[in-house]
């Protein structure tokens, strides 16, 4: 078995880490699902307030999405702008 190059090892593990980082989006998915469910309940109870409810839902989703976006940014950095390779 040939020796593993240090850079190759870092790149391989970074790719794995990028995939693992995206697990963090799970929480956002669950949270947005709960929010959408509650919004549907609210619209069923008060159909007149539909526009306000949708606007509040979108705003809340945008805030909840932040953690998922941070996961995506970490994954992108690990793949495209890996800071660890430079440490070799």
């Amino acid at each position, binding site marked *: 078995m040939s020796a593993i190059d240090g850079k190759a090892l870092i790149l391989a593990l970074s790719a794995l880490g990028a995939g693992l980082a995206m697990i963090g989006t799970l929480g956002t998915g669950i949270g947005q699902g709960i929010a959408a469910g509650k919004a549907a309940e609210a619209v069923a109870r008060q159909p007149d307030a539909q526009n306000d409810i949708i*606007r509040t839902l*979108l*705003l809340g989703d*945008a*805030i909840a*999405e*932040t953690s998922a*976006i*941070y996961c*995506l*940014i970490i994954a*992108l950095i690990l793949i*495209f*702008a890996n800071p660890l390779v430079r440490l070799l």
Partner: protein
Amino acid sequence: MEFFPKVVFVFPLFGMNIPVTETVVVTWGIMAGLMIFGYVAGRNFEKIPRGLQNAVEILYEGLESLLKSTMGEGSEGFVPYIGTLAMFLFVANLIGLLTFRPPTADLSTTLALAGITFVLTQYEGLKRKGIVGYIRGFFEPLPFMAPLNIIGQIANPVSLAFRLFGNILGGMIIMNLIYSVVPVLIPAPLHFYFDVFAGILQTFIFIMLTMTFVASAAD
């Protein structure tokens, strides 16, 4: 696949070579387009609107009512800023459909826009509460929470910038991956989701959050 924007040309200035990226070129193109649109649309307003003036008035009144319902009465002064932001982001997010790289897929653009919003928010807080009230606001509800309040203020523009950047760049990367697997037929409907839907939604969310931040700074 290109993650960083391409350097279109190098601009020599004071002995330094400043690389001008695709982002800057496309942004200037959008700015020129919006300025021409503004000139043509606002050239001759009449008492009884017709043609393009109708569309522009609908746009303005829609924005004004959105501002009033989000920030309350007396917020008409923000219509120019929010309107400019909305028009720029709308065009910038959708310009990917014309094979250009969206300027919002570059962190520099989104951080700059979020920075403008941050300065506006702080200025508005300072103006409404006065310098003493503004500084006291950081020490509420308890004095030792000042670091948390400061971090909270700085986190707002950062998350605003990263949200727009991440959404547009993520959509762009997914579309690139799909194009490299199936280059025909399949990507066309997906553009509706990743470019049109996400682009318009992110524009709306950016201006909504800007309005919310400014409104919450005032009280």
